[in-house]
């Protein structure tokens, strides 16, 4: 593994709570510690309701965190206000799953893409106009697309517009929340390739949120898995796909239908469904569905700890290959 660069973003005990029914507080993100390194793409995976989108939104304060800190270049973003926050926030952008829902239907593409340049970066109209043209070329739409409006474009093209708008203020960090999930396979591949190119050309750091492990494997350098608001495993892409160390990661990966067919792998069936996030199980929150759970798992919550260089797991009994000599 290459020497660890400095983290561009560092989350400490980040927590997001929502009001649930009957006055209960639902903790969607439960005290997450996470480092995202400059230039890497971190894939954040997990099933619906695990808190991955909420975590991504909280990192940009689109959803306000309830507690914890987000360190970016020595600044705690959660404490910034006014102009300083707006300027800093321009470095951190988001690509949404549904580009159409996030694009103003009445404005031209050029206006939509130019807006963050004018507002957050204080560019002149003339400079912005030129930059918009270049950006539309870069995302494969061509500068002539600038005069048209969102409804004139197909799903894949709209996602290119969403990407252009996110890149308009020249961000250093981008949260991409299921950016290709609504697209057909053939179009999905085009947009993934575009993102790969842009990450490389611009040296972007990215949090790529997806429920699709195939897509994540393609684009991410490291993988973080969430379950009930917590990160339960972080590993390099190759380590994770060679064999997840957390029993949930193992079950998740084994559930993905593959072109190789079932015979190739053992399917680990998860019993039951995701527990209610408002009242998570005691001890390890996964113990209710875990096939390896022992008494200790029901009472004692495991900490996220490093079990191998570059691999952290929140499990009392991580699944590690013996040859790596890890003492579980």
């Amino acid at each position, binding site marked *: 593994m290459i020497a660890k660069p400095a983290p561009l973003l560092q989350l400490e005990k980040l927590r997001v709570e929502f009001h649930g029914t009957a006055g209960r507080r639902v903790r969607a993100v439960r005290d997450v510690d996470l480092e995202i390194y400059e230039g890497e793409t971190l894939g954040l995976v997990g099933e*619906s309701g695990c808190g991955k989108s909420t975590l991504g939104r909280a990192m940009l304060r689109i959803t306000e965190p309830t507690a914890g800190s987000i360190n970016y270049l020595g600044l705690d973003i959660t404490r910034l206000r006014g102009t300083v926050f707006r300027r800093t926030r321009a470095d951190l952008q988001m690509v949404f799953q549904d580009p159409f829902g996030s694009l103003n239907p009445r404005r031209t593409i050029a206006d939509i893409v130019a807006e963050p340049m004018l507002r957050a970066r204080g560019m002149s109209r003339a400079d912005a106009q030129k930059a918009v043209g270049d950006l539309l070329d870069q995302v*494969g739409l061509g500068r002539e697309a600038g005069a048209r409006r969102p409804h004139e474009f197909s799903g894949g093209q709209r996602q290119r517009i969403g990407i252009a708008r996110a890149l308009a203020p020249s961000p250093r960090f981008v949260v991409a929340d299921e950016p290709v999930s609504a697209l057909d396979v053939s179009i999905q591949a085009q947009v*993934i390739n575009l993102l790969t190119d842009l990450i490389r050309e611009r040296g972007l750091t990215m949090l790529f949120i997806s429920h699709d492990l195939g897509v994540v494997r393609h684009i991410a350098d490291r993988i973080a898995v969430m379950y009930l608001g917590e990160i339960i495993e972080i590993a390099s892409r*190759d380590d994770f796909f060679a064999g997840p160390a957390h029993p949930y990661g193992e079950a998740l990966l084994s559930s993905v239908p593959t072109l190789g067919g079932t015979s*190739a792998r053992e399917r680990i069936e998860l019993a*039951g469904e995701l527990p209610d996030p408002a009242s998570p199980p005691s001890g390890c929150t996964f113990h209710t569905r875990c096939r390896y759970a022992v008494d200790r798992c029901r009472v004692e919550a495991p900490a996220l700890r490093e079990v191998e260089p570059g691999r952290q797991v929140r499990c009392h009994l991580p699944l590690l290959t013996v040859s790596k000599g890890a003492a579980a």
Partner: protein
Amino acid sequence: MEIRDLRVEFDVPAGRLPAVAGIDLDLRRGELLALVGESGSGKSALSMSLVGLNRGPTAHISGEVRFGGRNLVAASEKELRGVRGRDISVVFQDALAALNPTQKVGDQVAEMIRTHRKVGRRDAWKRAEELLGEVGIANPVQAARAYPHQLSGGMRQRVMIAIGLANDPAVLIADEPTTALDVTIQAQVLKLLKRLQAEHGTTIVLITHDLGVVAEVADRVAVMYAGRVIEQGTRDEVLFHPQHPYTMALLHSVPRVDGPHTDRLPAIAGSPLTGVTRPSGCAFAPRCAFASAGCGDHMPELLRRYGGSGHLDRCLLDEPARGRARAGSDSQAVAP
């Protein structure tokens, strides 16, 4: 079930949209046939027209769907009501939209039973509880009393399947039944479909865009593009020895969790056809990395060319060109 020259066209502001442009397909008893295609390929329009669910003033449906000695395309609405839910059931992707939010799910299953059979309320409710148990709901007695919004997405999809099975239909049409579900729940639902096929001998038409799902459960596959079947065969033929460049390109463009990690995904250039005008030749030719001048003349017939006896395709390429396309060497060269 035999489908012959089925066509479904819709009036849209720009003209007539050919959603299904002439499909011939046989459904064999007890098989699980996967209909694969991208949005706009016509796979859902095809499945809905099998039981007359997309009839209306703007729909023009012709051709034949032969089932039980009848042509369902020509059948009256009253006749179709007798077939739907009894002989042929449809399970939709969006269970929340398909279920009645104000009615207990047990009542919804029981109602489907009572629509087609003379059964008392109490017996129908009992059978509903049994069905909910059969589709893998852990506590069926309790679930029967629940309203749809009180159940998870996976549970609701099971309820939809229970309604579909209420009268032990010969054919179950499942339209993207697992697309809205998480993979761990999807695995449970797919297993359930396979069990129904094995235990009840139900013939299943599974509509999906997910080739991984096809690999896991299908016996046969029909790949659709722009309203037509462009390739059909057994699962192994279509997935492991595809004949049509569209199938090949689709298979290449799936990001996989297994196999070697590649740096670039071989994408298919351009977008699927969605407009009212269609090219005179092969509909895929404008996006095909292997198209030549002849491809623009006419749409090739669905014939056996180089595959096994039931392995049909609509492509003019010769065997060596197909081999090159299958290797995927040239498809790398297409646009971003």
